């Protein structure tokens, strides 16, 4: 099933954007991991006066608004920053909408699907390439966080084990978005449409979980949002692997992946 040619094709097509995303993730994590603890006192003072920003941060972190934004919350901030999340989601969506929607859209599907590889084989080899790329992206963020923390003047820097657990949680979220993107792409003939649909679902999920912090009535639906299962602050407080959250994210990813595989195996590959 593993085909080096197909994996190298996927890497050849994505290496430039993946490298750019890893560099961006690394740089952003270095900046945030350095800046936030260094200016913690000043930031806390500013946040006290800017209640709305405090609410937004609390919403991103998934904490209760009544809690104060302390050192742990600020340490968790680099992992829930919208830029970091956008980088992870965008990479997953860009990668996973290439097959089959992207291939059909640009007309290369005829050549690719005429090769002696099963559709499931194509899907599997793309998945291997995606998993490797996603892992590099998250490791890039992890290394950036470690480097930034080592330069900062934080009194109690985050333990490496906690950082690894947060990175694993982010990777789970990445795979969940990737699975969703694959499922949508398997049903689409136009890449732009597939990207749009996945972005809309992911953004709706993000908004749902953000608003759930403010509203009790919305909170009842928060289990339907992916961000409900990504809580770096909880990891920092409990120092434990969020097994349940990870299982839900991976379960979602696998379910979507399997649906996508079934759809791809049964659908017509038409010209557009």
């Amino acid at each position, binding site marked *: 099933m593993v*085909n080096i*040619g197909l994996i190298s094709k996927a890497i*050849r097509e994505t290496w430039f954007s993946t490298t750019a995303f890893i560099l961006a993730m690394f740089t952003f994590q270095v900046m945030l991991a350095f800046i936030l603890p260094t200016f913690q006192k000043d930031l806390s003072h500013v946040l006290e006066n800017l209640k709305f920003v405090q609410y937004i941060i609390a919403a991103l972190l998934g904490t209760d608004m009544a809690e104060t934004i302390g050192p742990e919350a600020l340490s968790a901030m680099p992992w829930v920053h919208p830029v970091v999340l956008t980088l992870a989601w965008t990479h997953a969506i860009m990668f996973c909408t290439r097959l089959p929607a992207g291939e059909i859209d640009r007309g*290369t599907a*005829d050549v690719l699907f005429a090769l002696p590889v099963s559709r499931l084989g194509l899907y599997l080899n793309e998945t291997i390439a995606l998993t490797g790329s996603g892992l590099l992206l998250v490791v890039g963020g992890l290394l950036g966080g470690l480097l930034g923390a080592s330069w900062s003047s934080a009194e109690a820097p985050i333990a490496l084990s906690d950082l690894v657990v947060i990175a694993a949680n982010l990777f789970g979220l990445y795979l969940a978005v990737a699975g969703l993107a694959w499922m949508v792409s398997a049903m689409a003939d136009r890449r732009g449409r597939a990207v749009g649909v996945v972005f809309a679902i992911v953004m709706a999920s993000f908004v749902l979980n953000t608003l759930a912090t403010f509203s009790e009535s919305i909170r009842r639906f928060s289990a339907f949002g992916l961000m409900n299962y990504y809580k770096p602050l909880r990891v920092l407080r409990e120092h434990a692997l969020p097994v349940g959250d990870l299982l839900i994210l991976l379960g979602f990813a696998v379910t979507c992946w399997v649906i996508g595989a079934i759809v791809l195996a049964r659908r017509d590959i*038409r010209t557009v």
Partner: protein
Amino acid sequence: MTAIAIQNLTKCYGRSVGVENLDLTVAKGCIYGFLGPNGAGKTTTIRVLLGLLRPTSGGARIFDRNCWSASHVIKTDVGYMPGDVRLYPWLCCRNALSLFSAIRRLDLKAYGMELAEAFGLDPAVRVRDMSRGMRQKLGLILALAHRPKLLVLDEPTASLDPLMQQTLHSLLREFASEGSAVFLSSHTLSEVDQLCDRVAILRRGRLVEESSLDDLRKRARRIVTIRWSDSSDTQPPEVPSFLEMLERGDGRWTAALTSPVPELLRWVSKQKVEDLSISEPDLGRVFQTYYE
């Protein structure tokens, strides 16, 4: 063993019909022409053969394997070039051969480079910098490089210059002489006439003709031009039943011959004829009747 066996194949797209109740077989070593006007269902049939489309009913088999369920196994022995070749813009001939070698788990480089030389394609030019003709050459190289037992080509010479068309024709004849089957769709009737052993003609998704080229030639009418002796006391005779008059006047007849040539010659020998010309069987006209 037949290379292709299509049985009662129907493919619908929603309410519209791509092909309907299609039956045909292609033997090994045969160059098979697949003709029909645009929208007749040629590409639909080809895409079913390659496992890109799932038949609505009926089915197609290649080397006695089902084209849908065993598609990836079949494609080991199939070379395909789509009508509108689209390739990855970052590919050049050299790295395409490396990539396809890795995917097919075969070394395609040596023969692929031979083909590139035969087609006059620079192996270092990237697809993004290629003309349509060059892309078509690369598509052909990738379809031929693994020496498939069946070649499926959708309008293979559409963007090739006449010299390259001849090169491709020679290659296809060589493939067929080695026992490979060639299934090609084309709108170029002279190409089909020169190259194919058998043809199938589709129209509005249905097979309207399937026969050998020799049979078609026998059925094709010849165009006869007769110039009468320039003599004022001579009146042209009555038109015989085996001539269908196309044009008449100025001491000249142009007519379609509907019977064998000897009958015409016997009749002409009794007339005062100054000149007679008989064309080759007009296959183009035969095809045209199916196209119209």
